[in-house]
């Protein structure tokens, strides 16, 4: 089964879900196409606290670089570059966004000059288009990540989530995938939720 996964690299919950779906790839026959979405776009027009607004502004930088890399190398570069960024943001808790971008580009063997995309608005329309393709399925007013699969008629269906912590591994990961597919393919399902009793556990 094919799945499309839209992510913003700085969201810790999207990170957990992304590491889960990589576990699923080991135990189920799925292939994931990775695409960017943007916390910046998600929060446009929202009345958010000043320090969060500052963080949101910074999220544009890695997203632009990811998109520039995608333009150059194709969709296949997105997962390794996301992983290289995410390890630094979420596991190493690095706060210096530009240092993370530089180190991640080097790790995956991309030219350091791609980092300049962070300061450019040239790709913003394309980032918005990629984002829009995801939220066209999940609806606006939810969050990142969005995962899409085909329903039983072959039409794409997309959801925000699953939001989980900690990362399910092995067969637990596979069972959650099975549940996701069963639920997502039933017409009319919009929400399953419980209160978050824990913050994100990212490793």
């Amino acid at each position: 089964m094919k799945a499309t996964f839209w992510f913003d690299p700085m969201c810790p919950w999207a990170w957990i879900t992304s590491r889960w779906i990589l576990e699923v790839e080991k135990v189920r026959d799925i292939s994931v196409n990775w695409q960017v979405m943007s916390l910046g776009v998600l929060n446009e027009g929202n009345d958010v606290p000043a320090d969060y607004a500052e963080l949101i502004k910074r999220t544009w930088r890695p997203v632009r670089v990811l998109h520039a890399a995608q333009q150059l190398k194709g969709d296949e570069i997105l997962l390794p570059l996301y992983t290289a960024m995410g390890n630094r943001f979420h596991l190493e808790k690095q706060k210096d966004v530009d240092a993370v971008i530089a180190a991640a580009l080097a790790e995956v063997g991309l030219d350091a000059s791609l980092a300049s995309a962070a300061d450019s608005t040239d790709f913003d329309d394309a980032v918005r288009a990629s984002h829009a393709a995801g939220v066209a399925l999940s609806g606006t007013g939810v969050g990142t990540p969005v995962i899409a699969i085909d329903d039983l008629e072959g039409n794409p269906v997309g959801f925000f989530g699953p939001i989980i912590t900690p990362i399910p591994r092995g067969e637990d990961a596979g069972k959650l995938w099975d549940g996701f597919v069963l639920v997502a393919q039933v017409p009319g399902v919009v929400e399953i939720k419980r209160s978050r009793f824990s913050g994100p556990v990212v490793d």
Partner: protein
Amino acid sequence: MSPWTWTTARWLEEVETMRDIKVNWRVMCMAILHENDETPPPANFQEWLESTWLVARAIEAARANSGDEAARKLLFAIGRMNNVERNRDLPAVIAAAVAECELPESVAAASTTTEFDAVVRASHAQAVELGGKDVGTPILGMPGPDGTAVGLFGPVVSPTPRGDAAGRLWDGVVLMAQTPGFYELKKERTAKVWCD
């Protein structure tokens, strides 16, 4: 009283006929859910919220009088009249539903007393204990990972899945409930709720 609860309840009834499950139907109360809202609800919504007490009390009165099965029957009779037949005269709905379920008139009368409020609150609290405070109704309490109990808000779904789709949704919800730390799967509600 909640149309989105009605569609989920109808789905669960369908699942009972096709999977080996037994549902224990318990009340929550929308009025209690909104008691501690940071911004008080608009006056007309507040009035409606207060009316949700009447139903919850009547169902607990039915349970006290005649047991869980009577409570289930009354719940579905009131739900049908309210959500499907769209009868908005709540005292009349309760009286008619009580009569339909062949329960004593005292069950309807209890809806305007505070006699069962503590029972309603305890039942509601049990659901919130499992599903959390910042969600809504319905909450589905079910076996979680390693013999624990978890509560999930939803599945919010419209129209009500029937037949094979109902069974698949159940199987999926069980798998999610049994995943440690599963919190949320959501999309925006773009369609109006359809009750039948």
